[in-house]
């Protein structure tokens, strides 16, 4: 493994790890706030218990998110010093704002997690709302920075150095809006279905448990709408890509030959050597429609892209197909839930539905990983699209395989610990005796 490959692998691995915790850090506060708000409105103590138990899991995930995010901030320099030297002043604004959002988030998360007995319930709920908002904002800011790497704006090149720097124009880059919307929805969809899936699984074992019924409802309420909106937002992303990042678009669609009235390629194995995507289903005209809203429009294929500027077509295409498949599944489950609810059925009593939701537990997270592979691998060989190659950005430090191996091992161990601790939290879900304790104050009041 050469140093460039080691650096890319380390960056990708660190980000793929961090994004799980980041997504939870955006999604969980919203779930907790919804549950706590329902407690304040209905007075049902199960909701309070729910918010409290979720907050324990969130504390674990948040700590790992914070430390792995710190690693990323340094890795930008440790692995890509030339990139940061070039890009820092241009795309740094969102990072500064992100730093601010983190600060607010960390402060109020401390207040939220440790302040159950120290604040009024109203102040406590507000602390949760601030955490949810600042978490979403920090995600939005960092994704804006990433969008700039994909569609760089806000500077002109003069003899290899950027001049006329305009950080505001850099923030308003063409990919920023589509990417931030898609990512924020993804965070809610992934967390919502992740949590719903766990509680659905437990409901399959203990069907009458009120705790899990309420949890399932709150989680679907957050995850479902996001999963329904996700294809619409993904379509906007695709239209943006067709205009601004044709190579990435062609690679993700497995579309080699430039043509009008282009068919949509579903599935299949792209072969870079022959320039064909084999074993695929082709839907006539659909790619032109999806890209430009016109069945006859010409769609640029990889043949218009110089061969040394192709990304890894196979990986990008397969990742994209995986995301679409998972997104379709989540959308279908949401439609099913809406149908059942509309018919006045109790979701928690439909075992087939519960099985489907339990199956969906990891799917949102997998879709997030796959989607990021499309974005990041699809940008290659560029670190700043059309401006700087990844190979020119890497640090001169040799032996990068060592930190890559080391961080991989470290993160594997952390993952094991996190999974074990989450399992412990979930396994402790309330038993019959706990119910008595939770409900006693209400019964006494009544």
């Amino acid at each position, binding site marked *: 493994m050469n140093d460039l490959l080691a650096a890319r692998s380390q960056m990708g691995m660190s980000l793929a790890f961090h994004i799980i915790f980041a997504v939870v850090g955006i999604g969980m506060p919203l779930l907790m706030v919804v549950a706590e708000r329902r407690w304040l409105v209905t007075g049902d103590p199960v909701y309070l218990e729910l918010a409290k138990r979720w907050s324990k899991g969130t504390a674990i995930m948040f700590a790992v998110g914070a430390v792995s995010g710190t690693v990323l901030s340094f890795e930008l320099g440790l692995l890509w010093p030339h990139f940061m030297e070039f890009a820092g002043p241009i795309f*740094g604004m969102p990072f500064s704002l992100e730093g601010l959002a983190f600060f607010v988030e960390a402060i109020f998360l401390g207040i939220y997690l440790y302040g159950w007995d120290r604040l009024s319930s109203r102040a406590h709920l507000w602390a949760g709302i601030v955490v949810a908002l600042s978490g979403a904002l920090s995600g939005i800011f960092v994704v804006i920075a990433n969008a700039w790497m994909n569609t760089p704006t806000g500077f002109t090149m003069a003899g290899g150095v950027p001049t006329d720097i305009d950080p505001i124009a850099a923030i308003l880059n063409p990919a920023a809006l589509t990417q931030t919307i898609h990512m924020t929805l993804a965070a809610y969809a992934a967390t919502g279905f992740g949590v719903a899936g766990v509680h659905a699984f437990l409901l399959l074992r203990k069907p009458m448990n009120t705790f899990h019924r309420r949890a399932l409802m709150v989680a679907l309420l957050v995850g479902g709408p996001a999963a329904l909106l996700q294809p619409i937002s993904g379509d906007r992303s695709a239209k943006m890509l067709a205009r601004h990042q044709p190579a990435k678009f062609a690679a993700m669609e497995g579309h080699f030959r430039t043509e009008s009235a282009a068919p949509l390629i579903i599935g299949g194995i792209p072969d870079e050597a022959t320039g064909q995507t084999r074993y695929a289903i082709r839907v006539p005209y659909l790619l032109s429609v999806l890209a430009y809203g016109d069945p006859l429009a010409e769609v640029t294929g990889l043949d218009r892209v110089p061969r040394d500027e192709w990304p890894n077509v196979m990986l990008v295409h397969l990742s994209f197909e995986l995301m679409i498949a998972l997104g379709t599944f989540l959308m279908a489950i949401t439609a099913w839930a809406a149908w059942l609810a509309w018919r006045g059925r109790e979701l928690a009593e439909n075992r087939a539905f519960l099985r489907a939701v339990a199956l969906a537990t990891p799917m949102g997270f997998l879709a997030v990983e796959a989607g990021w592979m499309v974005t990041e691998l699809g940008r290659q060989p560029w670190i700043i699209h059309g401006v700087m190659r990844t190979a020119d950005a890497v640090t001169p430090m040799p032996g990068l395989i060592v930190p890559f191996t080391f961080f991989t091992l470290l993160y594997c161990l952390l993952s094991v610990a996190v999974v074990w601790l989450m399992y*412990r939290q979930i396994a402790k879900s309330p038993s019959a005796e706990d119910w008595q304790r939770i409900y006693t104050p209400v019964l006494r009041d009544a």
Partner: protein
Amino acid sequence: MPDITPALLVAGGLFTALAAYLVMAGADFGGGVWDLFATGPRRKRQRALIADAIGPIWEANHVWLILAVVLLFVCFPSAFARLSVTLHIPLTLMLVGIVLRGSAFTFRSYDSQRDDVQRRWGLLFSWASLITPLLLGVVAGTVAAGAIPVRPSGTFVDAFVRPWLQPFPLAIGALTLALCAYLAAVYLTVETDDPALQDDFRLRAFGAGVGVFVAAMVALLLAWRHVPLVWHGLTASGWALGYQVVVGALALLTFTALWQRRFRLARVAAPIQAVLILSGWALCQFPYLLPPDLTIAAAAAPNVTLQLVLGALALGFVVLVPSLIYLFRVFKGRPQRV
């Protein structure tokens, strides 16, 4: 007086972030150190006090470092690039420390309360708390010594090891570690109203205070022998003598306050003392960001960027100061009972 430029203001912001990180997060690391050295019949209660004191605030305190890094790479990108290349190894090790400290601390709170499980996470947490400030100090010491070249050259060892694996940076590492432990011990005296626990940490504060003094003297000696840049800065300039007197006076004040058990006074004086020590470093290399060649002005990003960042910092000030005050009032308003 130099002109007040945007670059200088951002550099001031960078210094403020580092100072805040030292006196807030530094004390959290110091708490970890005292977890490692918890002894005597109140060992368990010492550890519980430390955990309660840092639990709600460490993540917020930690963001100061992130702010510093972001300011560095947005506003002084060439300095960030040079630092990251030459100091790849110590920075990576420091990151490992940061990762293990934060996660082990959190895992300990949420894992089984059985003694052996707690001890295992506790050891990881406390060793990581010890390593991290040490490496942070090494990084700072290397910068102060002017050992960050424009481009790495020579063998692997010449380029990536020798600059920082030197007596002076190591002494600064020890100084930073002692300072963190000192701050933590002083703060912990006001976190409890149990006189026995207060005494435990009072004693530790004295010990760590002596450690700070010794490490500082060793660093000074090494500077005199090996690092003329620092030695010259600390002794020859006009502010040097006045500065030494003020630092000495504050150290004396903290020690007297501890002696007389006026813990709240010590709690105020100790962080000021720490910030002054950090200012010594800043003053000694001013106007250089990376001595001996890269000045603040030369490293600075274009003015648009600096002005926007200053705007963001102003906004941050308005939002963060009340939030931080609220955080500390909720959790630090009264001593805890453990």
